[in-house]
């Protein structure tokens, strides 16, 4: 659609604004995998409330918005194996690499962090290679 990129720009701007707010006010780097991960593996310790509040907003507000606009769709595949395998890979990978699209991609690249730039190039490169192999090569996804 023609308007896709406008929404992408607006949405991206909001994502960046949220990251800037979390940094300037709370002094933290906004990374989705870090926020959830430190709650899951217990590394947040006694500082669990801040990431938990962040999560509440991250889950609650889109839920309300989706309800107002009459529903949204992730168009996630119905096949079970990519969902389970992909989920484990995303969870394990982002925690090993210490960041995902928001942490490395947005917060890292914006401060020209070498690790952030390298990680982003790697996951996008590998992602594209997987699309090529699985969609056009094997026709799996």
């Amino acid at each position: 659609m023609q308007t896709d990129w406008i929404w992408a720009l607006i949405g991206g701007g909001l994502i960046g604004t949220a990251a800037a707010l979390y940094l300037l006010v709370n002094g933290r780097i906004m990374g989705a995998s870090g926020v959830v991960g430190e709650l899951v593996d217990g590394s947040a310790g006694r500082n669990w409330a801040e990431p938990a509040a962040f999560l509440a907003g991250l889950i609650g507000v889109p839920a309300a918005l989706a309800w107002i606009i009459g529903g949204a769709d992730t168009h996630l595949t119905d096949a079970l194996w990519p969902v389970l395998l992909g989920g484990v890979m995303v969870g394990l990978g982002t925690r090993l690499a210490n960041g995902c699209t928001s942490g490395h991609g947005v917060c890292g690249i914006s401060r020209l962090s070498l690790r952030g730039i390298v990680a982003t190039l790697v996951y996008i490169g590998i992602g594209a290679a997987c699309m090529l192999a699985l969609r056009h090569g094997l026709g799996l996804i």
Partner: protein
Amino acid sequence: MRLLFAALAGSIFGTGLLLSGMTDTVKVQGWLDFFGNWDPALAFVMGGAILPMAVAWRFTPNRQPVLGGAFPGRPSTQLDTKLIGGSVLFGMGWALTGLCPGPALASLSWGGTGGLLFLAAMLAGMWAAPMVRTRLDGVAARGYSSKMDIRPISPAYAVSPQIAPEDMPAIVAAGFKTVLCNRPDAEVPPGLQAAAIGAAAKAAGLRFVENPITHQTLAQTVAPQYAAMAGSDGPVLAYCASGTRSSIVWSLGQAKLQPADAIIAATAKAGYELSGLRAQLDELAKG
């Protein structure tokens, strides 16, 4: 207050993810499909997000977050197996499903059973990560394990056998301000050479000085060693293969400052038997 702003940041983040299309796996997979029917829209998400954040980073030097505390320190520049391997795994999982952690959470309410299963699998992966990380660290350290054994010779100077990059937190905790490398790079594998140790030391906030000693160059290394010690705003930890060279160079520099007996006693207490230096120390004390 912190919680309020954390929730607000989460809310704006979630709204941005929904509006931008990041929660739509068809769009994400379309964006990763560079070699097929490529959908460029998500590049605008990245660009739109990086811009405000780049401005925010420019405000951070020499300032404090509004609600107190400190801004994150300078990012590490260490590219290791975990960063690369983790990003490879993440890239594969992302392509497979079209979901990354943020959107997986934001779409929880409308993602259906598939979304819940993805989230459960993702949380399981995150839960397992610390174990995998420990295992990988063990493999990386194999073959060049640390031999660190901090032996104080004076209140301002301690020596140790070969240290490793992962020793830095312990060195900081012990109160040292400078790490002094007395071992030539030719003696050790790359993971233990001055560049690797120095990078780890600087990342931990320590000063790092290189002053490699061989038995031929011993005499010329005394002055640089003491210059490095004088330039440190706290105790210095010097290392070589066993700590002997670092002890000898210290002893030679003390020759004019205290009697040979006291010097030899100080290094002996640290475990270095240097009474063979007595004649040389007496000579230096006179000269």
